[in-house]
């Protein structure tokens, strides 16, 4: 069994670590490139949303390298993500690949879920499984910490690109880390290295919050490395959520009350959950305003249903709370120049707004 998984953002590092710890041979999908995208687009349904196309491309590239088993999640709706695995299964089958799927999905019944979990844990002892889970979780927290710190450091660095080099080193160190202590050590060293970077002093740092659909917000390829791009334009781009929050939202046993509480401020605008991140997008936008951010960028894959509801409401929220928003809808046709032009214009607007506010 050579297992592969759908990567998003940096989460692949933690998933790989967990599977390897449990004794599987893992074939990680190669980093997402334009080739991945064009393979995905070629075989996926025309009007499916972008994450389905990209993950399909990821699978095919992993299969080319020898993978024969795919680990995936399933859901109960109403977002399309819950049915991804079923559609992708059919596509790969019609292409002639013989692939074993391990779909962790509650809607097919507890028995099936346990069978699939059993396939993953194999013959490992329970203490070993718990330990592997703990290390993987620690890596998730570390990845989030690394990302969060980099967002703040990037706009201030004197020589552009230094932070990205450090992240690269840290990620490969993190992949090798075997225990919680080692993971913690990697993070401490990362913090030290970031602290040693020569920094500029910016008095008028523009702060932008990023909200939207989780795959597009967290996957660097899909959002055209928005955080890095904004960082180079001397903007601090903070995410509304990181990998930890997504796990806490979608994995039943990890659910946290805090996040549900945070969503409540959106109720005057969207009365009940519309699936995906729809309601949370509104809640996070209001939160960013309360934390004195200058603007919000809303990311969604083209035709994403929950985010369209959010988009329909966002204009009103923006007016009511006086916070500028920019919605970027991304699909395989989106060009980097178009994105650049729009974020540059948005930032210019925020800068002049800030200057004007300070003057008056």
């Amino acid at each position, binding site marked *: 069994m050579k297992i592969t998984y759908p990567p998003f953002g940096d989460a692949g590092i933690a998933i790989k670590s967990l599977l390897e710890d449990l004794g599987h041979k893992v074939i990680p999908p190669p980093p997402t490139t334009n080739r991945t995208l064009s393979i995905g687009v070629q075989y996926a*349904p025309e*009007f499916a949303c972008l994450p389905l196309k990209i993950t399909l491309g990821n699978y095919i590239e992993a299969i080319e390298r020898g993978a024969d088993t795919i680990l995936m999640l399933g859901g109960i*709706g*109403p977002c399309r993500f819950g*049915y991804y695995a*079923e559609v992708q299964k059919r596509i790969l089958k019609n292409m002639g690949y013989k692939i074993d799927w391990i779909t962790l999905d509650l809607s*097919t019944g507890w028995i099936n879920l346990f069978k699939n979990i059993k396939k993953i844990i194999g013959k490992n002892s329970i203490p070993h499984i718990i330990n592997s889970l703990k290390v993987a979780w620690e890596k998730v927290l570390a990845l989030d910490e690394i990302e969060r710190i980099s967002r703040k450091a990037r706009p201030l660095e004197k020589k552009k690109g230094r932070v990205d080099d450090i992240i690269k080193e840290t990620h490969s160190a993190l992949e090798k880390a075997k225990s919680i202590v080692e993971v913690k050590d990697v993070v401490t060293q990362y913090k030290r290295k970031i602290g040693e970077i020569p920094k500029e002093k910016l008095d008028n740092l523009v702060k932008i919050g990023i909200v939207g659909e989780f795959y597009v917000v967290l996957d660097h390829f899909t959002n055209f490395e928005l955080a890095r791009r904004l960082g180079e334009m001397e903007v601090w781009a903070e995410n509304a959520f990181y990998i930890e929050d997504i796990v806490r939202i979608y994995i039943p046993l990890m659910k946290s009350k805090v996040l549900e509480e945070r969503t409540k401020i959106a109720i005057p605008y969207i009365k009940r959950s519309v699936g995906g991140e729809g309601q949370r997008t509104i809640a996070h936008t209001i939160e960013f305003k309360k934390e004195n951010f200058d603007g919000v960028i809303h990311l969604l894959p083209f035709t994403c249903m929950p985010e369209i*509801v959010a988009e329909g409401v966002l204009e009103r929220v923006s007016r009511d709370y006086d916070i500028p928003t920019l919605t970027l809808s991304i699909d395989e046709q989106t060009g980097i120049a178009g994105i650049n032009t729009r974020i540059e214009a948005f930032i210019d607007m925020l800068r002049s707004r800030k200057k004007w506010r300070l003057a008056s």
Partner: protein
Amino acid sequence: MKIGIPRVLLFYRFYPMWKAFFESLGIEVVTSSITNKEIMDISVKESVSEACLPIKLAYGHIVDLKNKVDIIYIPRIVGLEYQTYMCPKFIGLPDMIRARFTDIPPIIDHTIDKRNSQMGFLRGFFELGKVFTNNKTKILKAYLNGLNAIKEYEGQLKKGLLPIEILENKKLKSTDSILKIGIVGHCYEIYDEYISSGMIETLNKLGVKIFTMESLDWKEVLREANALPKRLFWTFGRELYGTAKYFIQRRLVDGIILTVAFGCGPDSLVRELIERDLVKPLNFPEITITVDEHSSDVGLLTRLEAFVDMLTRREKNENYLSPVW
């Protein structure tokens, strides 16, 4: 008091019920005009550009209603069946409309949610009735009247009448053609003349016998949909898949037309399932018509004519081949 019901989305399924319910409570019911150019233009201008056409049209119909009524009714339909959802845009529609307009009459929304229990429907209508009266027996009576109305309506549909023949008094030519075509698509796409560019009338003029999902046995349709290894969690997705399977596997029709709105989320995947599971293995004649605000009736006519010609020729020249081939 006058309540306005926009002629969009589930209008073609629930209107008789809503009408009977409100009229039993002593409220006058006004519907918006049948979609026209003006409504379409307003919709495109006011709505979220990425939404599908049926959702966009809701904006135009609200504007059409705003000066005619005291309140507007937009139900928040979450799920119509055990453990299934509607499209998220249906769930969020009242929110989207409220956020967009400030100068419209108040919107009455109530949740229709049958996901966990059959009582969800009744509970939803009680929530709705309480806005107008505190008299519980009155609400219950209105609800039962509503149920009767919809039962009668569904009975008419089962006899083969189309919703537009009942609700809009359209007259269709009767035909004794042997060519039968099944239309698989949401009610709000097929029966709204503007969305479907008059598909039903065009087919009727071409002399084809039309079958839609409204005339089928619902229980059977949903049973067909249950055959999927993973249960679909969209009410409409199950209906579409079940209908297509019902049509194809029983050879009820000679070909199917799949109507899909551009940008429809659930359909983008359900269509793929229908094509890969049902159409391709049997080489069944199928045409997909994607509708959006740019579709034209001329373009549609060309494609439908070609499809009908193809079916006629197949009927004449190919159908005598033995199935072994």
